[in-house]
């Protein structure tokens, strides 16, 4: 077989697949969002933007991401530092830390429901310790902030693992000599972390932040499991416009909003955390 053609033949299925099921559908979303029965129109966007839920929905989603992602980054950095320092039991600790990575967001929502529901474990503990007399109804529209906190906890619990895995792999790529050199010059552990680990970890931090932020904008099943539709988020609204309200065009408009904030945040991370030229290992 001709060696020149071989790599293209091998890439052909994957390329075709991505063109048909990735590039084309995203074009279709844009077409859907800007079209109605009579052709091109901005009506889906008007319907979306003037709906009373839209502002709350957008704000909730962005606020959730803004709270969850930084906490996850800090937590994952500590977990990764701990893991890289471990000598005995490293594998078992690593496995435990990565467990949530394999869990569905729906499962995570249900798990935290077991804690926060009225007859759940949090209430059992509060009553058991004598802090409250009767079990409280946490997840209701009267306690919107509790639903918010529960979603934040569930998201941090579920998705910190992926950030940690990326950071652990990144730390594995940093040459030992850098730390030894820093130690020779008298840098303590904290200084080594700030001056060696963090700068060298830049590409991993970038990957982790991009992935996590986009996933945070897609938060859906956790919210539904914990609060139903009481706490509206973008993905949930997309879903209900598609089904309950059966307007594909408005659903597509919502999708474009999610897409827009995802791409915007990706571009910000690409710019802010870019690796300086010639500074690779």
């Amino acid at each position, binding site marked *: 077989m001709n060696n020149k053609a071989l790599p293209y033949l091998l890439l052909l299925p994957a390329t075709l697949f991505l063109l048909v099921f990735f590039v084309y559908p995203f074009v279709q979303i844009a077409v859907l969002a800007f079209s109605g029965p009579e052709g091109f129109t901005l009506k889906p966007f008007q319907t979306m933007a003037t709906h009373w839920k839209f502002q709350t929905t957008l704000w909730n989603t962005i606020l959730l991401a803004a709270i969850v992602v930084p906490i996850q980054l800090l937590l994952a950095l500590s977990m990764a530092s701990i893991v890289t320092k471990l000598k005995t039991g490293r594998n078992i600790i690593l496995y435990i830390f990565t467990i949530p990575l394999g869990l*569905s967001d729906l499962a995570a929502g249900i798990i935290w*429901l077991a804690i926060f529901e009225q007859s759940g474990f949090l209430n*059992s503990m509060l009553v058991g310790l004598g802090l409250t007399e009767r079990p409280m109804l946490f997840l209701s529209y009267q306690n919107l902030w509790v639903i918010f906190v529960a979603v934040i906890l569930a998201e941090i619990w579920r998705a910190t693992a992926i950030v940690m*895995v990326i950071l652990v792999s990144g730390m594995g790529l940093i040459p030992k000599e850098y730390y030894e050199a820093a130690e020779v010059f008298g840098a303590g552990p904290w200084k080594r972390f700030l001056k060696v680990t963090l700068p060298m970890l830049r590409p991993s931090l970038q990957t982790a932040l991009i992935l996590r932020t986009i996933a945070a904008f897609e938060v859906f099943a956790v919210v539904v*499991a914990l609060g*139903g539709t009481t706490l509206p988020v973008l993905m949930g609204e997309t*879903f209900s416009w598609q089904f309950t309200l059966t307007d594909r065009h408005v659903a597509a408009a919502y*999708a474009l909003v999610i897409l827009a904030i995802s791409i915007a945040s990706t571009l910000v991370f690409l710019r802010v955390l870019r690796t300086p030229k010639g500074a690779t290992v």
Partner: protein
Amino acid sequence: MSDTVSVDAPRPVAEINAAGRFLFIAGIVLLCAWVLVPIYFLVVNTLSSPQEVAGFPKSAIPSFDFGSLQFFLHFKGVGWALWNSVLVAGLTMALSIGIGAPAGYALSRFEFPGKASFRMLVLMTRAFPLPLLALPLAVMFIRVGLDDSPIGLALVHTTLALPFAVLITFSIFSGIPLELEEAAWTLGCNRVQAFSKVVLPLVMPGIAASAIFAFTISWNEVFAAAVLTVENRTLTAFLLQNLSVSPLHLRFAGGAALVMPALIFIFAVRKYLFAMWGIANR
């Protein structure tokens, strides 16, 4: 902890180290508890009778009553949903490895014009919220008769899993020296024989790991599954649809049914998780 430091010979450095060590271990224990305790609560609820699940206060020790689990397994639609989940995940696994592994091999073995653009296309999928693809594809699938079918959903899940499959197989193939293949060529093998006799046995464990990873991605996916299936719901879509109407013990047993296979999957692929992200960073 044993406290053997004598009073008249203080050793500050050792003490600081001991305190640091204690904090370090306490931190590890705390973090492990943070991950494991919520899962334990789910297990407790699953292994309690329906009355206990709705009752108050909760005991932290399960009564090992299988009432909830039996109720879940006999609930109308659960068996079908489980089967659909396995079917869709199996199809996703086959598709993403079948399409992704050749691409990974090409990226690891050849230098050719267009390589950078292909990598760009694969990496670009990360900047997009992929479950949204289900919206336009729902329309397209109705047109071609793939609506509400396992294969239709598997195609969407493959879009999610394919970038990972390409990147993982790329890193696995890159770990096999080209010299091994070349040696086989000089011994009279052609390209296909060299691949199947020398490379394939070496990469099989890694390929299996990325296949399991693809399976897990599909098994866990909620949004696209809920959008694209109506009669043939997967387990996630089924649970999501019934969340607001089903009793608590059904939800918890369903959650456990989602979690348990995933725990095993992650255990199976744990070695490869880090290798794959190390390479995916670049």
